[in-house]
């Protein structure tokens, strides 16, 4: 029997989870911008957003984070590690594309080395996803073979009820079950009809795109220059993307002591590949845009068997010059492979 969580009980749930020591996080909008942020009361959530402007990744992979403190002495270097706070969290109201993004990045952060900064947070965070009943012109999960009710990366999937008064609860993992057992008495038995999920038209043929990208002859195609001519090389697309994961190390301090930090970086920046000699193997913006597409749809799946894109569409939604993954893959779909 499905259980139902009624909206008017959500505030009690938030209180209960907080009493149990969980930080409760969800979609929040302030006047000018939206993100997943910690709340104290259910009223702070904004479930009307298509999705927050900023993706969920910053909760697992912050834009800047200390890694170690170092002191350089005469004969040796002393270091002490920073570790993420062992805080338990529940993210209530993640979007399926955001939750999928985390699952897409798991193999990357755990491949040759287990990145504790990522996994400690992954292991102590419960992800409660709400299926989408609305989409906008930029959503493209279906083109990535995902859906507005994908369960990938989620611990619990909630389906909004047709009467808009709550959600059907679908527990997917033990972590999700534990979190919902905490509030079991606040749930109701039964299964009111769920609202239809959003209709997201398929925007491009992914298989055709991947085939084109895999053909080595297309690497030097003039297509790349044409499609990226208006790219201004900011990192808006990278930094808003739930799956882009590149980072840079920076030592901040003086000559003898300081903090080593891990900061977001982007393949859109010329500096990303600049050699000490001054030579830049990706000297043009088109080479950088090609890298972004190739990495997501050719190299990453080649290694991890999954595309590095969950179809949230933020890259196109927020691009200052109206570019993005969608336009590029749409254009590639129409090219002869």
């Amino acid at each position, binding site marked *: 029997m499905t259980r139902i969580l009624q909206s008017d009980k959500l505030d009690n749930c938030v209180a209960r989870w907080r009493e149990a020591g969980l930080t409760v996080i969800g979609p929040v909008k302030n006047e*000018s*911008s939206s*993100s997943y942020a910690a709340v104290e009361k259910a009223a702070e959530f904004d479930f009307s957003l298509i999705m927050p*402007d*900023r993706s969920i990744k910053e909760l697992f992979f912050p*834009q*800047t984070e200390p890694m170690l403190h170092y002191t350089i002495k005469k004969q040796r270097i002393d270091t002490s590690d920073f570790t993420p706070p062992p805080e338990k969290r529940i993210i209530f109201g993640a979007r399926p594309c955001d939750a999928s993004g985390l699952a897409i990045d798991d193999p990357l952060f755990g491949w040759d080395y287990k990145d504790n900064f990522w996994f400690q947070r992954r292991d102590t965070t419960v992800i409660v996803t709400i299926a989408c009943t609305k989409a906008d*012109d*930029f959503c493209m999960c279906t083109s990535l073979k995902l859906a507005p009710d994908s369960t990938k990366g989620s611990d619990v999937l909630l389906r909004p009820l047709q009467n808009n008064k709550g959600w059907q609860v679908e527990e997917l993992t033990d972590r999700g079950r534990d979190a919902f057992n905490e509030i079991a008495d606040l749930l109701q038995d039964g299964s009111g009809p769920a609202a239809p999920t959003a209709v997201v038209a398929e925007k491009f043929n992914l298989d055709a795109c991947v085939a084109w990208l895999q053909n080595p002859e297309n690497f030097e195609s003039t297509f790349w220059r044409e499609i990226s*001519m*208006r790219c*201004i*090389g*900011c*990192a*808006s697309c*990278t*930094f*808003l993307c739930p799956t882009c994961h590149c980072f*840079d190390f*920076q030592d*901040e301090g003086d000559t003898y002591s300081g903090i080593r*930090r891990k*900061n*977001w970086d*982007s393949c859109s*920046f*010329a*500096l990303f590949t600049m050699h000490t000699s001054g030579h830049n193997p990706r000297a*043009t913006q088109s080479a950088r845009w090609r890298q972004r597409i190739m990495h997501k749809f050719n190299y990453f799946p080649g290694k991890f068997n999954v595309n590095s894109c969950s179809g949230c569409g933020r890259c*196109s939604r*927020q691009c*200052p*010059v*109206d*570019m*993005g993954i*969608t*336009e590029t893959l749409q254009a590639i779909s129409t090219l002869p492979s």
Partner: protein
Amino acid sequence: MTIQETYKARVKKLLASGTVKMVIGYKPGTTADRRRPHFIRTPEEADQLVLDSACITNLSGYLLSEGLLSDEKAVAIFLKPDGIRSINILAAEAQLNSEQILILGFDSNDNQVTALEGEKVEEFTTLIESIKEQAPEALKNPLLEQIEGMTPKERFAFWQGEFSRCIKCYACRQACPMCYCRRCIVDCNQPQWVNTSSHTLGNFEWNIVRAFHLSGRCVGCGNCDRACPVNIPLRLINAKMAQEVLGAFDHFSGMSHTQEPVLASFKKDDSETFIL
């Protein structure tokens, strides 16, 4: 004929006659209210041209795309008055030769697009002078006044709150036609002059460095403000700095292609004993 159609015909003629090698304009974007930069190299490509009040991006930064102007061939570009002023600045700062630029001027008010007379940047001088006249009024902003009424502590808290969202994507820099440095100070990493981390200090450093570097140079086109993915009100900083240089030095950016940059000029008889 609508202004869009008149301009379309003109663009086709300019390209067909070989007067210019490229026209930089606008075409439809993903949604009905979006326009994309459009690089037109053949008369046929001009068919997609759009000119309406949704054409708001200042396109002048594209003129500095690597190699575009190096063959000395003329390029035409759609510009509003703020964009025209940025041509003056780029010329004054020796980034381009304004002789090479053919301006297709337009302005939009209340959803109405109007054509501006002239082709060469000097022909817009009277227009720019009248904009300078109106600047003290035009730069006024209720939120800015509210911020000025704050105590230094409150003001600091206000900006700390706004900058806390900065993710150092540098979209503001990349979108700005005045931010043309091949190597921005934040990218100089031997040594690293400015923290790249987007913590409180790093975000303040970045936004203050940019505000200073744009003082007396910003034309208020709004590219940075619109590009910022987390909606930091950069327009307030720009307006404030424009008011300051106007009040202190009677300097309004982009008046002519020979205008002296306000923060990079030096006079032997300067009344101040200290220069920045």
